[in-house]
């Protein structure tokens, strides 16, 4: 298949089209403007609809409406815009409507900066708004993976009738890499949602109503339980991660997104020095890859390193909770648009490795 040299944002937009996305609504915000700009031209080419909403809230509301008719729909933004979208995402979750949301992360909080960061972790994985509900969250680390995950996100969304967030940092959104684009899906090969979309009636002729208000208290509790069961299924069957050189690792590094690339390179170099480092790279960050951490032999693994572009740390809390004291978890953090270097990772691990117990 032919490789094409594309910018992350453009590539993700094209991946959505190939997945059968035929509706997009969004609003300008750095560093993701290429996504609405690309789709404003591309969607009409495939008889899709593009709307530049008057705000991020209007845009997610438009997605909520169109997605309830069974059309694959998407919106994108950055941290401050995702904040505004929380209400609409909460509604998608409650109404069990599939959609894809791309968060191209910038430094925060608030207007913050326009440089890449990983400061949306807790907000995106922990909060699909009130109600204790969640989105499925994917975190690609290359432009190719961003393409593949956006493409797959629509299928995951349909399978679980839940919004999926693809959380990518501004570096991946703006870098250009050689990629292979996936096949263009024919719309009639996609799930047709005959059983719930509001453009059809039920088999018995009854009208379909999508509503997030549940009058019966027992009924609402049942609905809440169904959500909890969904997340259990994700936890049991849908964890995604990449395991790198874990078999004999004594030190395990964990990182996602752009920083995972520096971390991977650092791991390979440290190995050359004889330091037995391995890596767990979360690909889905919700559900968190607990199995990867539980699969480690803590008799051999003496240190876990959490490497993220966020101060205060965010993924650290999930790592620490998952490890449950079986090994100390160290942090290597940069923030505000600053970028972790491979060299700083090597230096930190090498220094700690020399002072660590039981290390030979």
């Amino acid at each position, binding site marked *: 298949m032919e490789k094409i040299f594309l910018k992350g944002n453009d590539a993700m937009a094209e991946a959505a089209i190939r997945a059968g996305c035929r509706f997009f609504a969004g609003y*300008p915000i750095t560093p993701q403007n290429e996504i609405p700009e690309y789709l404003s031209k591309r969607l009409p080419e495939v008889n899709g609809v593009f709307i530049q909403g*008057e*705000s991020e809230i209007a845009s997610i509301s438009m997605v909520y409406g169109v997605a309830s008719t069974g059309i694959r729909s998407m919106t994108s933004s950055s941290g401050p815009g995702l904040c505004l979208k929380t209400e609409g995402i909460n509604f998608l979750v409650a109404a069990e409507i599939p959609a894809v949301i791309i968060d191209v992360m910038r430094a925060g909080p608030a207007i913050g900066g326009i440089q890449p960061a990983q400061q949306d972790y807790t907000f995106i994985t922990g909060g699909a708004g009130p109600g204790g509900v969640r989105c499925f969250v994917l975190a690609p680390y290359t432009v190719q993976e961003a393409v593949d995950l956006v493409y797959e996100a629509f299928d995951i969304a349909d399978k679980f009738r839940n919004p999926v967030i693809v959380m990518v940092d501004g570096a991946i959104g703006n870098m250009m890499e050689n990629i292979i684009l996936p096949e263009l899906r024919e719309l009639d090969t996609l799930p047709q949602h005959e059983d719930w979309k509001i453009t059809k009636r039920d088999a018995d002729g009854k009208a379909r109503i999508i509503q997030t208000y549940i009058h019966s208290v027992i009924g609402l509790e049942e609905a809440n339980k169904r959500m909890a069961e969904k997340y259990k299924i994700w936890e049991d069957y849908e964890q995604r991660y990449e395991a790198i050189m874990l078999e004999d690792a004594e030190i395990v590094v964990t990182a996602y997104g752009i920083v995972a690339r520096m971390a991977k390179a650092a791991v390979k170099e440290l190995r050359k020095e004889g330091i037995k480092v391995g890596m767990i790279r979360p690909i889905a960050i919700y559900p968190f890859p607990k199995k990867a951490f539980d699969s480690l032999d803590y008799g051999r693994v003496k240190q876990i390193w959490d490497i993220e572009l966020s101060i205060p740390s965010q993924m650290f809390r999930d790592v620490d909770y998952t490890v449950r004291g079986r090994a100390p978890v160290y942090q290597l953090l940069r923030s505000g648009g600053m970028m972790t270097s491979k060299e700083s990772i090597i230096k930190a691990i090498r220094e700690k490795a020399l002072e660590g117990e039981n290390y030979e």
Partner: protein
Amino acid sequence: MNKVYEKPKLIPADLSNSWCPGCGHGTIHKLIANTIDTYRMKEETIMISPVGCGTMNTATGWFDCNSVACAHGRASAAAYAIKKCYPDRLVFAYQGDGDLASIGMAETIHTANRGGNLTIIFVNNGNFGMTGGQMAPTSLIGQRTTTSQEGRNFKDHGNPIGVCELIATLEMPKYVVRVSLHDAKHVIQTQKAIEKAFRMQSEGKGFSFVEVLSPCPTNWKMSPVESMKHINDVVIKTYPLGVFKEDK
């Protein structure tokens, strides 16, 4: 020789602003600074800043005016509330097309409807400047932007919104005016409009709204001189200048 035109005191004499050459924000800030200087309102003025190019130099402290920068579109709401709590201060919101007419449209209408003695200064340059030139509610029919690459068209995007026309239908606004920056004569008119608006506020005479047709040479892909000509020849046809409401 005497100095007959000097730089406004609120703007540093030797520190340049970071707007593009020919950008209207520099001119409008100068006019606001002149007004505050003339009427000695420096201590009592509070400016509410937007998200967009308009906030860029306030954020760095270049403009010597107390200010608070709001979330995108919310400046008028915050400004109204501040004025309500501090009726004796000069309070104004300074917003661009995205902030005032897109994401902030609900706040704009409700603030104008509540009125009070607030002033809003609206910088209309027909695009989202800071983020690279996307289409705005104020972009002209036929205007090519990064999200209307074939040009804005009525069928898909509706007409450009005349905010003055909209605001003037409400009861509370007492002075609603559209001015322009395209030549010295019109810059002087803009100065006068801002002075009148601020004076009205100080005299408790009601809500004022000043819309300024402003150039964006970078995203219009024109030189500053061409941009001014564009306002005179083209933009004014969609956005006629004049007073839309004036209580005597």
